[in-house]
């Protein structure tokens, strides 16, 4: 017994060791390392499920009730099957909401209701007290047993507490909890030290139990089968080998216990704390799914063996709860006894520590904090609360201790444990319906929990107190108020169930019934809707977006005010960090001037951060009351897009309806684009704004030409005001700002706007509270703006603003279309006017031209008349003169004297000269009037030269001159008028003879082709005469000019010869030029077209054609009247007659009149197949020259066509 005397010392040593482990765990944490972030530690810490109730109680339970203990662990194993969709989801939700306990979790789900949180906290303290008491009892009992083994055991339950070890242990454990479980107020920051110590304890208890199991089974007995076989000898032991009949668990019990434990393993405050709050990651959960059940399996494996062994070893069945310890003791194995004791001790203390920490968190967060915060003390709340929390741990521990003192040793361990399980079961409907069924609401949850808890109290807790409170004995036996159907153990006459099944059935049934039916009957509040969605759908973003559209903050507190507020709970450093995190996440630099939406987000951030310290329900309440004092309201606001965002999550039908609405909107937008009338567009647009945005006022503002923005259409504003208002270039109107910056502007609350709007009230006089202005932008430049006004504050979601801007863009497009169209119309009109003007101008000009032409024609006619008259009137007397003179000279009138002869010869010579002069003048004027007609034919050059020489030879007279003809040594044919060519030669030769006194006159000819392939003969006439001075060279072809006035007299001639020659050459298409050197000689060159076989034929044809021009008609096909008129004017002026034709009548007209040419509009010809066919079919038309009229260049074309015809006519006639 020497070792056992060290027991208190050893216990203390063990506790010290626990402190050391916890301390190391926290130290590592501070260094940024984590010892608990692995699945083994997580699984071991979950084994806090196995308390002293498992360690000692299982054996007790087996020896009394057989396999009843098994479903408690099989249920927990089954629960592991569901972790991937239960515990995992709970963990995720909990992390999202920073929840601190199971009470906080449930209350957060139901709109962060403080009432639910407080209720659950109180209920759980009640429910867990027996459990805590049970642990203390186990520790005390075993300690007593060891300490006084062999002596008379002390009756601990009736001892004064200061003699009681349990009391001191309770205090020491409270200190441990306070040190390692309440280090910080922020529970979401994990308590690594504590968790590490708990995991260590789990190892200790498993090791201890396996030791005693192996010792009993293999050292005292010969194996498991040996014990079981020996046990089966005894009937009372043998009946424990199966279930279904008393004392073994009934089948109901079996099923109920599985359910009970499956739920308890997740929802017990300590399990929730370790499994959810202290969870370090999903990966650990996955491993824990089989490690934790394996632990349960191992720690329970030797339970039947030890229980049966205890009975076989002759131990009293009443002591079955401590067989585990008693067997090694009676066998004198002190070391094993100590190990077992420490194992049991660790099982109890582990549970005590975690449970009290979890419960104290609930008490502080849901009961104490709201109360203290409302006191509005100036104290640093974080300091106050953390100490209150530590105190609460101690208080709960002591409460447990006193419960143990009151209940004493009346109950065996397992009953107390199960009672706690049943209490926790009442949270299951609220929790699991809460995370899977969105409709569950606060009222339903509350009703379910309250009813379930009352039934639990009435059917389970109360009967457990009958020994301590004798009054209750009557109630339990006869029912409340003596009503038999209210008997706690057989409620509503259902008497086939054991006390557990009875309680579980009724409490759970009524709980679920209330939760479901109340949830269906009563509606949810707004906050509840949000949290419900975030729990069931577990989508952070959905929650945020919902919050965005439904809530709005008026006059938010400043940064400093928030900082002061937060500092009270988390200390200044943490508070600053919390706020900085928010600004960092949103990328904001300016801490003030948040938009009301940002302010709302900040409020949510603060609530969430604070929730980690004091629970989310309290956090919400505290923040709300803080904001209330501050004068800030969180108001629900109307938003047309709320239902859109919700519909995304709603059923397909709702979505379909929304799609329909949107497509209606789309079609009205289409209508916008269908018209090009600006006024119509504005009418449609304002209707779209009015109907789709459903705001009290809306307007369309367009930039006028004077650079001011004016309201063009509006709804809901004062008409006079709207007409009169003009927005000028000013930074202080939202309209102009939006217009200039080309950005949308939304003011959610005018009170917090940088400046008041220009329009301050609606048509009905209500002041404007919020507004949105969107610029109408087309291809980068603004046309105007559209705006919406509201008489209430409004939150404009991004979605809303995007949509609004979309509408503005659409309106802009339509307006731009209309503007373009209007501009096009104006341009068209301008063009038409210009054309009309030009036409009139042209008509005037052509009238003038016609007049002038007519005048000229008249003058020409007169001149021609004059000339012909002159030629007749002059020639007749001249011819008479010459005739009579010759008669006299011939001696017909008798002989004449020599002097008379001389005089007569002079007369004759001068008369002949005069006649020549008149002929020349007539020729020249005829050429100039274009009346000289050529008779072009194939002419042999040598023939012309020969004849010409014979004519001029007499002129040589006595001069020592000879004419050399070098051109005639070959046969050359020209295309020319024989007589005119002869005239040219005579002129040039006589000219040469005139100015050459002696020497020779040489005629030569060269041939050279031009670019078109036409060959030209260059004929030269050279003399060796006086020559022409350089300055006179270019004058010699002018009419009535000889180089010197005197030369006419000296050399004779009219001075018209060269002039006529030049014109005659040019009429043939040729050129004439002269080279000369003074006193050496002069050479005249001229060119004439050569005749060739190839050239000959078409030429003849064309000549024939052109010969008929003047008499004939032009067919014109031109749809444009203006062009037609112009062409008509031109061609009639030129002496043509005109026939208008089209595809239908052209055939008939061609039968009657043979046109000289066809003038047809190019486009008409291209497109009118019939016209083309008719022309091609008709023999006459087919061979008629066809000219196209191009609308763009018809004037020039016509002029060219006409002039070429005229030229051809003049040239070849």
């Amino acid at each position, binding site marked *: 017994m020497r070792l056992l005397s060290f027991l208190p010392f050893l216990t203390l040593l063990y506790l010290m060791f626990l402190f050391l482990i916890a301390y190391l765990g926290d130290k590592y944490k501070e260094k940024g390392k984590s010892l608990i972030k692995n699945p083994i530690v997580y699984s071991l810490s979950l084994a806090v499920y196995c308390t002293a109730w498992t360690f000692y109680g299982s054996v007790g339970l087996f020896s009394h009730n057989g396999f009843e203990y098994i479903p408690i662990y099989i249920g927990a*194993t*089954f629960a592991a*099957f569901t972790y*991937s969709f239960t515990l995992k989801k709970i963990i995720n939700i909990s992390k999202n909401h920073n929840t601190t306990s199971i009470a906080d979790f449930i209350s957060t789900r139901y709109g962060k209701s403080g009432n639910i949180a407080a209720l659950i906290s109180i209920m759980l303290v009640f429910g867990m007290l027996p459990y805590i008491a049970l642990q203390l009892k186990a520790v005390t009992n075993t300690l007593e047993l060891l300490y006084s083994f062999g002596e008379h055991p002390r009756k601990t339950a009736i001892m004064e507490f200061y003699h009681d070890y349990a009391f001191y242990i309770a205090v020491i454990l409270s200190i441990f909890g306070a040190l390692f479980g309440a280090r910080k107020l922020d529970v979401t920051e994990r308590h690594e030290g504590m968790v590490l110590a708990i995991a260590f304890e789990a190892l200790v208890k498993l090791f201890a139990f396996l030791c005693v199991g192996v010792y009993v089974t293999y050292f005292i007995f010969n194996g498991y089968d040996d014990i079981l076989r020996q046990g*089966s000898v005894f009937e009372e032991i043998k009946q424990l080998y199966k279930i279904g009949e008393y004392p073994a668990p009934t089948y109901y019990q*079996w099923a109920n216990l599985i359910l009970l434990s499956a739920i308890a393993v997740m929802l017990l405050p300590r399990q929730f704390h370790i499994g959810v709050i202290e969870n370090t990651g999903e990966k650990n959960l996955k491993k824990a799914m089989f490690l934790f059940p394996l632990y349960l399996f191992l720690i329970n494996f030797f339970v039947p063996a030890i229980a049966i062994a205890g009975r076989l070893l002759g131990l009293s069945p009443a002591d079955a709860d401590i067989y585990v310890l008693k067997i090694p003791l009676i066998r004198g194995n002190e070391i094993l006894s100590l190990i077992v004791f420490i194992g049991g001790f660790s099982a109890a203390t582990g549970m005590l520590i975690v449970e009290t920490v979890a419960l104290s968190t609930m008490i502080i967060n849901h009961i104490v904090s709201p109360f203290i915060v409302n006191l509005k003390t100036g104290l640093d709340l974080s300091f106050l609360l953390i100490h209150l929390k530590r105190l609460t741990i101690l208080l709960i521990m002591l409460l447990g201790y006193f419960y143990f003192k009151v209940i004493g040793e009346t109950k065996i361990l397992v009953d107390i444990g199960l009672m706690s399980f049943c209490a926790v079961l009442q949270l299951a409907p609220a929790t699991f319906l809460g995370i899977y069924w969105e409709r569950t609401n606060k009222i339903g949850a509350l009703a379910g929990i309250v009813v379930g808890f009352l039934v639990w109290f009435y059917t389970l807790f109360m009967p457990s107190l009958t020994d301590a409170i004798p009054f209750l004995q009557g109630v339990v036996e006869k029912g409340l108020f003596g009503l038999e159907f209210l008997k706690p153990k057989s409620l509503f006459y259902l008497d086939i169930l054991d006390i557990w099944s009875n309680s579980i059935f009724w409490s759970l049934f009524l709980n679920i019934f209330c939760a479901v039916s109340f949830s269906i009957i009563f509606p949810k509040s707004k906050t509840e809707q949000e949290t419900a969605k975030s729990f069931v759908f577990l989508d952070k973003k959905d929650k945020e977006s919902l919050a965005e559209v439904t809530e709005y903050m008026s006059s938010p507190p400043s940064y400093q005010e928030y900082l002061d507020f937060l500092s009270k709970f988390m200390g200044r450093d943490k508070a600053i960090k919390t706020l900085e995190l928010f600004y960092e996440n949103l990328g904001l630099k300016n801490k003030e001037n948040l938009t009301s939406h940002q302010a709302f987000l900040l409020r949510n951030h603060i609530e969430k951060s604070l929730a980690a310290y004091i629970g989310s329900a309290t956090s919400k309440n505290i923040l709300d009351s803080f904001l209330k004092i501050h004068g800030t309201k969180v108001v629900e606001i109307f938003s047309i897009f709320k239902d859109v965002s919700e519909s995304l999550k709603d059923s397909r039908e709702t979505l379909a309806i929304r799609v329909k609405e949107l497509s209606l909107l789309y079609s009205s937008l289409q209508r916008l684009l269908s018209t090009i009338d600006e006024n119509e567009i504005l009418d449609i647009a304002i209707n779209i704004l009015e109907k789709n945005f459903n705001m009290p006022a809306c307007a369309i503002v367009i930039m006028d030409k004077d650079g001011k923005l004016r309201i063009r259409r509006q709804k809901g504003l004062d008409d006079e005001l709207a007409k009169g208002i003009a927005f000028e270039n000013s930074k202080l109107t939202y309209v102009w700002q939006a217009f200039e910056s080309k950005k949308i502007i939304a003011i959610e609350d005018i009170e917090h706007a940088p400046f008041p709007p220009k329009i301050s009230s609606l048509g009905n006089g209500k002041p404007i509270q919020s507004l949105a202005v969107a610029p109408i932008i087309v291809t980068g430049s603004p046309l105007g703006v559209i705006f919406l006004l509201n008489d209430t504050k409004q939150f404009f979601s991004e979605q809303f603003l995007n949509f609004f801007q979309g509408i503005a863009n659409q309106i802009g497009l339509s307006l731009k279309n209309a503007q373009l169209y209007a501009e096009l119309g104006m341009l068209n009109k301008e063009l038409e006017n210009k054309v009309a003007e030009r036409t009139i101008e042209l008509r005037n000009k052509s009238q003038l031209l016609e007049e002038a032409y007519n005048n000229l024609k008249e003058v020409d006619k007169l001149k021609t008349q004059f000339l012909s008259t002159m030629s007749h009137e002059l020639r007749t007397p001249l011819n008479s003169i010459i005739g009579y003179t010759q008669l006299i000279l011939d001696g017909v009138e008798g002989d004449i004297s020599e002097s008379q002869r001389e005089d007569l010869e002079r007369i004759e010579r001068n008369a002949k000269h005069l006649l020549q002069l008149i002929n020349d003048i007539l020729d020249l004027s005829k050429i100039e009037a274009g009346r000289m007609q050529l008779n072009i034919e194939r002419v042999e050059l040598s023939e012309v030269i020969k004849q010409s020489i014979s004519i001029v030879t007499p002129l040589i007279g006595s001069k020592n001159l000879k004419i050399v003809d070098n051109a005639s040594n070959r046969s050359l044919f020209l295309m020319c008028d024989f007589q005119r060519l002869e005239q040219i030669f005579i002129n040039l030769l006589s000219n040469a003879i005139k100015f050459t006194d002696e020497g020779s006159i040489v005629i030569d000819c060269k041939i050279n082709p031009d670019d078109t392939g036409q060959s030209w003969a260059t004929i030269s006439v050279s003399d060796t005469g006086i020559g022409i001075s350089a300055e006179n060279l270019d004058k010699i072809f002018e009419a009535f000019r000889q180089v010197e006035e005197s030369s006419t007299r000296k050399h004779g001639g009219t001075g018209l010869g060269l002039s006529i020659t030049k014109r005659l050459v040019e009429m043939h298409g040729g050129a004439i030029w002269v080279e000369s050197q003074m006193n050496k000689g002069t050479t005249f060159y001229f060119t004439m077209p050569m005749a060739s076989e190839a050239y000959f034929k078409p030429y003849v044809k064309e000549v024939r054609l052109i010969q008929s021009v003047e008499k004939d008609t032009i067919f014109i096909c031109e749809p444009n009247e203006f062009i037609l008129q112009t062409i008509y004017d031109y061609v009639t002026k030129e002496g043509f007659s005109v026939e208008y034709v089209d595809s239908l009548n052209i055939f008939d007209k061609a039968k009657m009149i043979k046109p000289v040419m066809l003038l047809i509009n190019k486009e008409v010809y291209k497109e009118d197949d019939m016209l083309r066919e008719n022309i091609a079919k008709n023999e006459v038309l087919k061979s008629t020259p066809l000219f196209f009229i191009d609308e763009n260049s018809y004037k020039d074309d016509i002029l060219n066509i006409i002039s070429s015809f005229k030229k051809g006519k003049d040239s070849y006639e």
Partner: protein
Amino acid sequence: MKRIKEKEWWVILFILGVIVLNYPFIVIFNKTIFVFGYPLFFLYIYVGWAISILMIFIFTQFGGGDRR
């Protein structure tokens, strides 16, 4: 055939476990006869429990089908 998702596997296993180790199924084994020197019910429960844990181990290790 469509592969069963991990979550669906867990539901199937859970239901299977609850049925096999629960009333009325256990009635089949609820007899005081000895098999291999052990009471049948004892053997059934402990082996069944161990198999359950083994199943969890297998499915957590090798996934339920939605992971390669």
